[in-house]
């Protein structure tokens, strides 16, 4: 999923958006140069935030299993991505969190496999909810 392709929709929600990586700053900076990622990219090399938010390590099957190969191929061709050896832990999985105006979590999605992400529609709906929740009783 390329969130930046939906940049205007996300920014219309008034949300602050940030990504996190556990890789070294030089790889993070290269990622910014090579992609159109328009929001802050935070470097969490000791993975404290990954632990605080409960993100998991996938099993070999969850990360490399043949059930994922069609999805990987689709991703590679859709991005015309360069395929290269990963720099770091391939078993660390990611996730998405949406936080409301009062600092409470309204969406917590911890990936169970590399391709497991919430849809853009689910994220936009959560952001709409997050923007409203601080303005009324909850």
């Amino acid at each position, binding site marked *: 999923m390329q*969130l930046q392709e939906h940049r205007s929709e*996300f920014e219309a*929600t*008034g*949300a*602050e*958006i*940030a*990504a*996190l*990586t*556990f*890789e070294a*700053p030089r*790889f*993070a*900076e290269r*990622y*910014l140069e090579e992609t159109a990622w328009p929001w*802050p*990219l*935070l*470097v*969490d090399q000791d993975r404290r*935030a*990954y632990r*605080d*938010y*409960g*993100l998991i390590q996938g099993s070999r099957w969850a990360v490399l299993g043949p059930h994922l190969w069609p999805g990987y191929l689709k991703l590679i061709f859709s991005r015309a991505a360069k395929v*290269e*050896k*990963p*720099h*770091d832990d*391939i078993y*660390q*999985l*990611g*996730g*998405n*969190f*949406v*936080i*409301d*105006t*009062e*600092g*409470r*979590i*309204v969406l*917590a999605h911890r*990936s169970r496999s*590399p391709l497991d992400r919430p849809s853009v529609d689910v*994220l936009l709906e*959560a*952001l709409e909810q*997050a*923007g409203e929740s*601080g303005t009324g009783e909850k």
Partner: protein
Amino acid sequence: MKQQPAEVGRPAPDIDLPRAGGGRWRLADHRGRPVMLVFHRHLA
């Protein structure tokens, strides 16, 4: 102090990290706006 699990309805654990390219980013600075965090796996 042990932090509460990051679950729906609970306060989000604080984040204070360096930004790629320079500067820092603190979750607490964005109170009052909705926030979306995207945790990447490796970037390759």
